[in-house]
């Protein structure tokens, strides 16, 4: 395929606006007499609320109102940003109140103050008297499942959110006939998204008595639905506006503060109220990434072919279900189109505990399972003395593979080439030879890991996306999409698509970046790496419709059949001769003002996509381990991706850099730490939560194997979340190579490495 603008590394549409501070984020908007909201959170991990006395707080001058659950409708609602399921059995667990009547984790929202300013609101919080009956708590998922564990939700007395899994083939027989059975336990820690902009929203009633919510969200249309559900008001009475967003990574694919900020405004007669979380609140009272513990067992044949896999997984979802079971379900489905297992038995359990709530985070369960699986694959190779690259390649699926359960089909498969390129880049063979028999304080090693990932959520969820294009008098267009720009660069990608189809320069495509549920086409939002693949299909369809209309109009006007016409560089040309007939502007102007034929051209369309495209990739890493201090340094790291056609190389590079950087922290330093005795978070700030700095980040190399995915509107597959998946196991495998030590839990921070080295007698 040859494209003109698709594939070019054009600058982001919003680049200048953002770096010059012109782009407005939720907290940048001001209303006259904006009030300030603040949340009182529970100091206990598990406690019944006997009584809340707000009298003193409400007496404080400047306080307008203090809210508790008693002031709000008693409606339990689900917070996950999924499309609404018409069938009740597919819906998310509705287990949350806007303000709770029972504290289920340290940080649970118990009461809220609306005051004239932040300082008064903070003072008022101290005057609220809550009488708690402290209950025993549980933090560990496996503990929570044991008989006699504290009951967190009465509706689910065994603390099990769900244990729905998958099974295929003759699993028992494959294990019985196996030459080798390998086992391992792998565990990930709780980390957080750390988007720069914390959750922020404000709400007021407009002149039509409708509730307006301006929020930093990935999912405006879903926010509208959930606020309606949580407050029991008609969805049409709510209008959600999404301005520019300072990062989400899944933490804004969730409805967290919007129902409360709406309730706050309603409590003060629709006056504007703003609620912006502090970083400390954001760490505790938004969402985290699930810690998952996997027990993996694999069966291998005599010729070292993977036969069967048995996975038991315990996913700690914290105090409320949030995305709950869909996270680990995503994990156990998305890893499947990679190795050629004849059978599998996948037994996931999603469990309530008294920890902050886990939800969606970049790659939705897949970083966890790929850490476990790819660590396990290296363990197999080490124990059976096999080359980890050859072993993987020998066991890969092939093009045309169809998953026996989801029936997702592999129509493009660049993984083998990704592996070859990564291996060559990092000089695998040469370095492997050099690093044999190291003895000193600093030891080097190489590791790699592969992954598979989906483009969107089909067939699990609805994949609907809308786009609208309006042709202007000068031949330029406005593009409106329901898919949200949250920093990932979607607007630019969509603009490139429109420019490509319409044959106009990029600067003639004006993307309306703000989503407003009153006027924006419907789309469920930014998540699941679905924008380019799913919304990209809607954008292409809308652009084709506009083009067809333009050519039809031009044909009428010029008297040349449409089949002979095309648009190139904003000019109507004769396709056969390549000669210019007139400018696009000439035609566009007539569509507006021709006294006989005037009919301005627009397109307003929706797609409902019923395919998925499997994207692939690999990480190769080289590390140096300080055997004395336990410090692991990544010397080289490269991600090679098969994401189909790369629409914008510059943005793709940025996407990979960001994802790898996130995964470096996941592998080496990031972890939320809780006091076992109290369940209280200890490191709710950037000093103690060890997000890596640019000084800690090695040069990140990137390469793309550009397959052409026939179901993608331009041959594209997903890329957004993908880069964050495979670096952690690659680094872990490199550390294993360097030291011979199996780290089966991340992060491998210096303290952990020290303990492990000591345990192994290396220190």
């Amino acid at each position, binding site marked *: 395929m040859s494209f003109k603008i698709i594939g070019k590394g054009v600058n982001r549409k919003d680049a200048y606006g953002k770096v010059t501070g012109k782009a407005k984020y939720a907290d940048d908007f001001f209303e006259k007499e904006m009030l300030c909201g603040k949340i009182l959170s529970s100091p206990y991990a598990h406690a019944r609320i006997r009584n809340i006395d707000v009298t003193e707080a409400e007496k404080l001058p400047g306080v307008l109102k203090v809210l508790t659950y008693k002031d709000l409708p008693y409606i339990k609602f689900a917070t996950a940003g999924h499309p609404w399921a018409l069938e009740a059995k597919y819906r998310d667990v509705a287990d949350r109140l806007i303000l709770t009547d029972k504290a289920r984790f340290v940080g649970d929202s118990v009461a809220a103050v609306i005051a004239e*300013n*932040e*300082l008064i609101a*903070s003072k008022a919080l101290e005057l609220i008297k809550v009488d708690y009956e402290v209950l025993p708590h549980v933090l560990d998922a496996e503990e929570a499942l044991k008989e006699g564990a504290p009951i967190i939700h009465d509706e689910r007395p065994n603390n099990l959110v769900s244990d729905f899994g998958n099974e295929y083939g003759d699993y028992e027989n494959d294990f019985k006939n196996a030459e080798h059975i390998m086992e391992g336990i792998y565990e990930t820690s709780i980390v957080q998204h750390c988007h720069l902009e914390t959750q922020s929203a404000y709400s007021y009633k407009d002149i039509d008595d409708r509730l307006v919510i301006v929020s930093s969200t990935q999912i405006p249309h879903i926010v509208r639905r959930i606020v309606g559900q949580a407050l029991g008001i008609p969805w049409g009475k709510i209008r959600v506006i999404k301005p520019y967003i300072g990062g989400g990574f899944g933490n804004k694919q969730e409805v967290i503060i919007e129902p409360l900020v709406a309730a706050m405004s309603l409590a003060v007669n629709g006056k504007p109220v703003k609620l912006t979380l502090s970083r400390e609140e954001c760490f505790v009272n938004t969402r985290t990434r699930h810690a998952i513990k996997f027990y993996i067992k694999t069966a291998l044949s005599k010729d070292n072919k993977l036969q069967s896999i048995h996975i038991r997984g315990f996913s700690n979802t914290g105090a409320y279900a949030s995305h709950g079971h869909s996270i680990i379900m995503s994990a156990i489905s998305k890893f499947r189109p990679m190795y050629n297992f004849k059978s599998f038995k996948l037994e996931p359990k999603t469990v309530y505990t008294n920890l902050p709530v886990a939800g969606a985070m970049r790659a939705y369960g897949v970083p966890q399972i790929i850490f476990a699986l790819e660590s396990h694959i290296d363990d197999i190779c080490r124990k059976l003395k096999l080359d980890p690259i050859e072993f993987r390649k020998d066991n890969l699926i092939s093009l045309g593979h169809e998953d026996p359960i989801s029936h997702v089909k592999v129509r493009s498969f660049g993984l083998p080439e990704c592996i070859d390129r990564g291996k060559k880049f990092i000089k695998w063979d040469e370095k492997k030879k050099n690093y044999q028999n190291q003895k000193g304080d600093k030891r080097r090693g190489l590791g790699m890991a592969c992954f598979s990932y989906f483009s969107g959520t089909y067939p699990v969820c609805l994949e609907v996306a809308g786009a609208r294009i309006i042709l202007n008098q000068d031949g330029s267009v406005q593009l409106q999409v329901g898919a949200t720009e949250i920093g990932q660069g979607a607007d630019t990608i969509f603009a490139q698509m429109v420019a490509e189809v319409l044959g106009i320069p990029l600067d003639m495509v004006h993307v309306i970046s703000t989503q407003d549920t009153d006027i924006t086409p419907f789309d469920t939002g930014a998540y699941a790496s679905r924008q380019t693949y799913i919304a990209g299909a809607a954008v292409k369809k809308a652009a084709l419709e506009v083009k067809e209309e333009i050519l039809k109009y031009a044909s009428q006007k010029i008297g040349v059949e449409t089949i002979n016409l095309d648009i190139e560089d904003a000019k109507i040309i004769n396709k056969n001769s390549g000669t210019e007939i007139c400018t696009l502007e000439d035609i566009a102007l007539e569509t507006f003002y021709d006294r006989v034929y005037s009919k301005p051209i627009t397109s307003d369309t929706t797609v409902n996509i019923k395919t998925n495209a499997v994207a692939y990739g690999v990480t190769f890493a080289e590390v140096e381990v300080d055997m*004395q*201090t336990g410090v692991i340094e990544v010397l080289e790291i490269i991600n090679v991706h098969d994401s189909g056609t790369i629409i914008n190389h510059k943005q793709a590079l940025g996407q990979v850099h960001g994802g790898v950087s996130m995964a470096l922290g996941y592998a080496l*330093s990031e972890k939320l*730490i809780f*006091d076992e005795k109290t369940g209280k978070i*200890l*490191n709710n700030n*950037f*000093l*103690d939560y*060890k997000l*890596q*700095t*640019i*000084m*800690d980040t090695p040069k990140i190399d990137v390469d793309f194997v550009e397959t052409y995915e026939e179901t993608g509107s331009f041959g594209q597959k997903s890329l957004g979340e993908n880069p964050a998946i495979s670096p952690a196991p690659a680094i872990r495998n490199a550390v294993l190579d360097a030291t011979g030590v199996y780290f089966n839990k991340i992060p491998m*921070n*210096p*303290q952990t490495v*020290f*303990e492990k080295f*000591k345990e192994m007698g290396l*220190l």
Partner: protein
Amino acid sequence: MYSINKIYEPKSLQEALEVYNDKPNLVIIAGGTDVLIKLRAGKLKDIELLSINNLKELNKITYEKDGTIIIGAMTTFTDIFRSEIINKYIPILAEASVSMGGPQIRNTATIGGNLCNGAVSADSAPSLLTLNALLKIESLNSKRLLPITEFYEAPGKVKLNKGEILTEIIIKKEDYENLHGKYIKFSNRKAMDIAMLSVAVIGGINNNKFTKLRIALGVSAPTPIRCFKAEEYALYKEINEEVIKEIAKLTLEEARPRDSWRASKDYRLHLIKVLTYRALNNCVKMAGGYISE
């Protein structure tokens, strides 16, 4: 929004000392990188501040005729690590200063604030301890010089009386001349982090023997400390691998690190040994010595 009731902003040291003398309950704010954090966290509230940011006389680095180096208490870490005087005569302090926080913090955080805050992790403390720094402390009616070894009392507590302000950090020529030092800050990140442990070593060597050696540790006891026993042992011993190891080991006799969720006591003890050993190696090399097997 911070809970500050009033702020005094005197224009001279004299005026500051007068105000402070009248109102000894004022909280002094220098660069603000500690006070503002405490205010934001609600650990300080309803307070009145005494800002010493306008006291230009406290923002200086001078080299006196006798080789004494004077650093004004309001000198920022950026100014210190960029200072020609510091880099030429006491580079160990430049090393420590540039390891502190990130650029924005270093642009405003002051060396005086770093010391007076009393943090066990203060990046400037170990280096200044090895440099035998003297602290000039002034009140409206008094002036005194206190060796830094006597300054620290307890975590977050230093020997400053009501009405007293730390004005200068003084380093004498004999305490740095012909000495070579190394500061190792150990933290989880390479920037924007506090020390999990820190070691400063400064020494002079003649005939491959230490003629002078001073070792200081951060985050290894309730306050930053010197390791006098290890220092004493080292003097005039023929330097070899065994001696260096023994010196490193002896630092543990004075170290009293604690167990915390940031790092275990075990790990800290191990790091003290390893990092002191590494700093000593560096120091020996720089001072022209060698380590025989």
